[in-house]
């Protein structure tokens, strides 16, 4: 049987206490105001949530796989997501897309410059991959970076970038074409774009985080379109190897899928908790609605979804912590993301149904979860992309 350690359970309780006291009471207001709560992010930093998987020299907890560092991050995301999906994704993106690329591919100097503030939650960073014409097909990046003497000159546009335009955003890492290479394909020579990753600090002239999106959900999460017009950054802002930008991005993606699955688990748990309470209270035809099979069976489905999603998620996280072979972990991550996020969307549909007309009213959190859930099936690889990966993992030559 798969079980979390006592320490992990204690940590879960700590984050749950934090989420209940510091996040839950304000989540509805932040959602209404589309407000990114900088002070709360800072408190999450004080609790060490951004540094769970970062080394001590940058202010992190210095946890290893043996300590279950990645599992602890997933627990934190789940517990925040149980009360507020926006804060869950803020943490997930800040670590997975903000900190991890720098931690994994950065030079000592880049790490020393950027990580301490990111790890402390004094700053967040975004990762700009998606473009108006490049989403699932991230290789279709059009943004360009040209080396002009000692500087990269970045031109182009990114879209849907999380944590990219808040008042504490310190940088965005962007993928950009830095040239092209001739490669042989099917006997012919084709030009393949060379994609690299470049760190663009906030405040760089020519780099603008445009007005935040009006989104269906995740209102308290910071998402912007970005534009780059002759934005100049030093040559040493190249992150990792030139020409390896896309490959580097792919390498950090699997962790993010498990983390999104954890966020989905938090959503399903919230749906179950809210529905269970309501089913015991709401009276129709002389008794609580939970007595009607039509409602009770839906709650049974929620519990079943929750268990399955949780097992898939945390066994994938445990594989990561245990250093499982890449191919096996990739498959587990894609399966966890696919199943947990699709379950979360179903769970919010069930929960709103259990709440009847009240489920459609913003005065109950159920409505917010309903709006927030949908994007789980889209961000960090759509469900279709996960299915494609899983099928490939089965050895099918899916294009």
């Amino acid at each position, binding site marked *: 049987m798969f079980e979390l350690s006592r*320490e992990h359970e*204690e*940590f879960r309780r*700590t984050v749950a*206490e*934090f989420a209940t006291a510091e996040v839950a009471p304000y989540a509805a207001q932040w959602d209404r105001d589309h407000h990114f709560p900088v002070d709360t992010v800072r408190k999450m930093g*004080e*609790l*060490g949530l951004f540094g*769970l998987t970062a080394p001590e020299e940058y202010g992190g*907890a*210095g*946890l290893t796989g043996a*300590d279950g*560092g990645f599992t*602890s991050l997933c627990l*934190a995301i789940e517990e925040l997501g149980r009360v507020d999906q926006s804060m869950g994704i803020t943490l997930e993106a800040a670590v997975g897309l903000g900190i991890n690329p720098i931690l994994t591919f950065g030079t000592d100097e880049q790490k020393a410059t950027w990580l301490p503030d990111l790890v402390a939650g004094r700053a967040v960073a975004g990762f700009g991959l998606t473009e108006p014409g490049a989403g699932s097909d991230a290789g279709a990046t059009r943004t360009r970076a040209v080396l002009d003497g000692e500087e990269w000159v970045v031109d182009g546009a990114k879209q849907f970038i999380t944590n990219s335009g808040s008042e504490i955003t310190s940088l965005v890492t962007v993928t950009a074409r830095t040239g092209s290479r001739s490669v042989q394909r099917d006997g012919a020579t084709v030009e393949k774009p060379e994609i690299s990753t470049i760190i663009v600090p906030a405040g760089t002239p020519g780099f603008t985080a445009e007005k935040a999106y009006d989104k269906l959900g995740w209102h308290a999460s910071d998402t912007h379109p970005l534009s780059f017009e002759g934005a100049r950054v030093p040559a040493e802002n190249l992150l990792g190897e030139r020409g390896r930008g896309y490959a580097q991005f792919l390498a950090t993606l699997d962790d993010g899928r498990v983390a999104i699955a954890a966020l989905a688990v938090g959503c399903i748990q919230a749906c179950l908790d809210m529905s269970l309470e309501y089913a015991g209270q709401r009276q129709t035809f002389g008794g609580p609605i939970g007595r009607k099979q039509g409602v009770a069976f839906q709650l049974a489905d929620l519990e079943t979804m929750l268990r399955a999603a949780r097992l898939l998620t945390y066994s994938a996280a445990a594989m990561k912590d245990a250093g499982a072979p890449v191919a096996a972990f990739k498959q587990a991550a894609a399966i966890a993301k696919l199943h947990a996020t699709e379950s979360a969307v179903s769970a919010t549909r069930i929960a709103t149904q259990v709440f009847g007309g009240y489920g459609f009213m913003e005065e109950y959190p159920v409505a917010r979860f309903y709006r927030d859930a949908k994007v789980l099936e889209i961000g960090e690889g759509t469900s279709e992309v996960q299915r494609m990966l899983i099928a490939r993992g089965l050895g099918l030559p899916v294009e």
Partner: protein
Amino acid sequence: MNIVVCVKHVPDATADRKFESDNTVDREGVDGLLSELDEYAVEQALQLREKRSDEEISVTALTVGPAKAADAVRKALQMGADKGVHVSDDAIAGSDYLGTSLVLAKAIEKIGSEQKVDLVVFGMASTDASGGVVPAMVAERLGLPQVTLASVIESQGDQVRIKRDGDTATEVIGATLPIVLSVTDQSGEARYPSFKGIMAAKKKPVESYSLSDLGVEASEVGAEAAYSAVEEATARPPRTAGEIVTDEDGSGATALAEFLASKKFI
């Protein structure tokens, strides 16, 4: 400097509380946790250690209670205390404030026999019994000054200054270490343990003492030695439907006032 923080393991107030057949609180069969009010004490001890980082300061969390009470020590260690002491003995069950304070005082003396204890910190009361008298009793037994109900604590060298907020005035009290201090829930929010703290706590030393280790006779503590006994315990009655005053002819205010007066609220 050697600081001892006394922490109590209490039943979770959000769970169903139960009583044993002798009307003492069931401490084994219910979920428990470190009394919230004691978290403030741990926090103040840790802040003192942090503020005086140029000194060698050790914080020991001390609890008296059954096996499960070790969780209270663990929580204090997770928050950042350096070591723990857990006094456990079947004979302690059912002790009143006097019995508990005796065991605590003896345990503090034992800790002090290795390195002098400069400061003993308590919360203002426990969240289960809410007596708030144990700090004073321990101070008396140890022959130390008691500086209680502090909302602000400042220290320099061996001098400690606290603020105590009363109903009509705030008192500022100065004392010279060693002292027994109790802190209120206004002294500053307690920190949450980080995952790093939780992992680190696994490796911190916890000593277990029995009554004989402390030189306390079983007959001095426990329900038998207690000066008070709980005769009966009744669960709070469920809330009943209130009385609704319908105001049809303008007599509502009078009816309301009469009701409040009959309950002695006004």
